[in-house]
Structure formats: C-alpha cells, structure tokens
C-alpha cells in the first residue's frame, strides 16, 4: 500500500459536496451542512475518527489500498451524523447549530441522514448491483439491532434496577453495532469473503463497545460536566457501583443520583465515591477485555500488513491498561500530562 494516511478533510468536503448536490430543500441543506461543519470542528483535535478510520482501514486491510474507500467513508460519516443527531434528540442534548430549527425539522434532517443520503451514496458505488443490494441489506439489519439497543437504553434512564449485564447488552447493540455496521459495509465493499466480513464485523463490534465504555468513563470521571449524571443515564461504572451496594446504601446512592440530575454541584461527590470504590478500574478491565476480543477477531481476519498496524494502533489507543511498547509518541504525551498533574 503506497500510503496508509487518511485525509479526513477530503471525507468531510466530499460529504458536504454530496449534500449540496443532492438535497434540494434550502433549509434542510443548510441544516445538514451546519451539522457536518459542527462535527468536523468537534473532531478536529481527535487522532482517530472511528466512523472514518475504521471502515477505511478495514478496506485497506482487504484491498491493500485506501484511495477507493473515500466514497465509503462519506457514507459512514453521513450515517454517524444521523445517529449522533438522533442520540442528542433522545438525550435532550441541544446543539448550537440547532438554533432556529424546530425539533420536527431536526428529526426530518436525521431521517435524511439515515434513510436517504447513505442509500443514494451506496447506489452510486462502483460495484455490482448484487453487492449494492448486500450493502442495503446490511444497513437495514443493523438498524433493526441498533433500534433494539436504543429501546433498551430508553428503559434504563433513571432506573434503579438495571444490571451490568443489561447495560453491556445495550452498549453492544448500540455503539458496538454502529461500528460493526461501518466495518461490515467496508468489508463487503472491499469484496471480502463471508468469513472475513464476520471477523471484521466482530472486531469492530468489540472495539465499538470498548470505545463506548471508555467514553462513559471520560464523561463520569474527567469531563468538566457529566452529561450522563445530568440525564440520569445508567452507565457501566454507575451500575457496577449500584450492584455492589447493600440495600440501604443503594437507596441513598439512588437518591444522590437523582439529586445530581438537578444539581451539577453534586457531581464531584458522586465521582469521589465511584473512584474510591474502584469502579473506574473495574470498567477499565472490561474495556481491556473487549480490546482483547477485538484483537482476537482481527487476527482471524488475516488483515494485510500496513492497514493491520493501523488497526492495532487504534485498539492500543482505546485500551487504557495495555503496555504501550511501540507507541512512543503517546508514551511521551502521557508522561508529560502526568507531570502536569
């Protein structure tokens, strides 16, 4: 492979051009372009964008080149944006670029991003009609699984009875399945065998699950403001903590969670309790387990070497506890950050 570097700005500008060329309604087009712009700005500091890098590297791992994967990355970017908007609507996380648009309009825009634009993009891929059909089927089946995951999730908010098992299944069915979808589209687009598609999909599902648990940890333990505590979202560290509490203490903690929804000043106390009880470490081990599963699945897929290294680096990036033998840049950055603490 001549280059394993991905130019993310090309993906975003191609996606913007796609929206410009295909969305005729001016107001809808404007909203979608603002949404895309906002996503690009938010992600500008990130080393890895899962919805671009994972599908493109998987394509590269099969075909040993990346340049043909840009149309695929445009599709997965549109899908990611649609899912992101739906999630924000469900969580009540209003975004700046929503100003001036009604919730109905935002819903409609999300629908275009999930049910129309990606399908149009796929229809223009330079592959056989049978392969295109396969991609559409993959999309439909995946949405059914993600819808089921989201349904679970809606039942867990503010709940005092959710179990670790239930949270895990919900995360696998949502974020895990989202990344699995992108991987499956990539592997099928690249003409992979059924076995390869299965292994790459599993790799991405496990990695997506690890990423979500890691993001939940960041929200709870490191972000200046915890959206999950404010929304009453029951993430893994919280449920681990609840499951280990005795009956009376459990009720006290649930009351504290309810208070944290109303008052951000209560967040630090909850964080201290969760940190002191070791729940951050417990979740770190679960993340590690999913990273290990991702690595085992990747191994079975027999990826081509240069893209394989990129995929391994991605897992290393997500992993919190693995030895960092090769990623010297990240080691240096880490050492510096700890010295600043």
């Amino acid at each position, binding site marked *: 492979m001549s280059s394993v570097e991905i130019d993310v700005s090309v993906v975003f500008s191609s996606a913007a051009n796609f929206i410009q060329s295909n969305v005729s309604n001016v107001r809808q087009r404007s909203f979608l372009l603002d949404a895309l712009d906002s996503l690009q700005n938010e992600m500008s500091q990130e080393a890895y964008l899962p919805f671009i890098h994972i599908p493109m590297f998987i394509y590269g791992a099969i075909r040993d080149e990346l340049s043909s994967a840009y149309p695929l990355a445009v599709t997965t970017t549109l899908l990611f944006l649609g899912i992101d908007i739906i999630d924000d609507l469900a969580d009540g996380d209003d975004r700046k670029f929503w100003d001036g648009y009604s919730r109905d309009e935002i819903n409609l825009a999300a629908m275009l991003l999930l049910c129309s634009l990606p399908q149009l993009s796929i229809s223009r891929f330079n592959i056989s009609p049978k392969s295109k059909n396969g991609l559409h089927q993959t999309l439909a089946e995946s949405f059914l699984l993600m819808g089921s995951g989201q349904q679970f999730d809606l039942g867990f908010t503010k709940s005092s009875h959710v179990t*670790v*098992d239930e949270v*895990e299944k919900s995360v696998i069915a949502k974020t895990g399945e989202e990344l699995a979808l992108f991987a499956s589209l990539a592997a099928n687009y690249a003409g992979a065998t059924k076995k390869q598609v299965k292994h790459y999909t599993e790799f991405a599902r496990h990695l997506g699950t690890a*990423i979500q648990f*890691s*993001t939940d*940890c*960041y929200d709870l*333990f*490191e972000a200046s403001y915890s959206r999950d505590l404010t929304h009453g979202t029951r993430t893994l560290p919280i449920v681990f903590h609840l499951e280990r509490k005795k009956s009376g203490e459990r009720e006290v903690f649930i009351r504290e969670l309810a208070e944290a929804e109303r008052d951000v000043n209560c967040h630090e106390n909850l964080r201290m309790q969760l940190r002191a009880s*070791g729940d*951050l*470490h*417990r979740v*770190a*081990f*679960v993340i*590690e*387990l999913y*990273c*290990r*599963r991702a690595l*085992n699945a990747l191994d079975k897929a027999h990826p081509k070497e240069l893209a394989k290294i990129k995929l391994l680096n991605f897992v290393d*990036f*997500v992993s*919190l*506890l*693995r*030895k*960092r033998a090769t990623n010297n840049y*990240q080691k240096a*950055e*880490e050492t510096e*950050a*700890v010295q600043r*603490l």
Partner: protein
Amino acid sequence: MSYENVGRLVDKWLNDEKFRQQLRRDPKETVRGCNANLSKEEQEMLNSIDWSLSDEILKTRINLAFG
C-alpha cells in the same frame, strides 16, 4: 457476561499491596496462582496489562483517548 472472576482479581489488586507487588514482579505466575477460574480470554487480557500503572496514568489515558 459475569465479571465475578475478574472482579475478584480487581478487588485484590485494589486492596492488597502485597498482591500488587507480586503482579509487578511476575504477572503471569501471579494470575495463574490466583485460582481465579478465569477464561482463556480473561487470562490473555490480564497478561497484556501494564500492572505498573498508577491512577494518574489511568486518568491521563482516559483523557487522551476520549477527552
């Protein structure tokens, strides 16, 4: 998925300084000696961990990965 077995080991790691020192010296033997009834996958995972990690490093990694 039950994390009982891994959870017990995590508890030991968090609360037992002697166990932590043993893990730093010889992680494979220490994990094997735990009789923690771990699956092959859990064993592989535990063997790949950097047991010298402090809380500060863990927090930094969360920040760097998804900050």
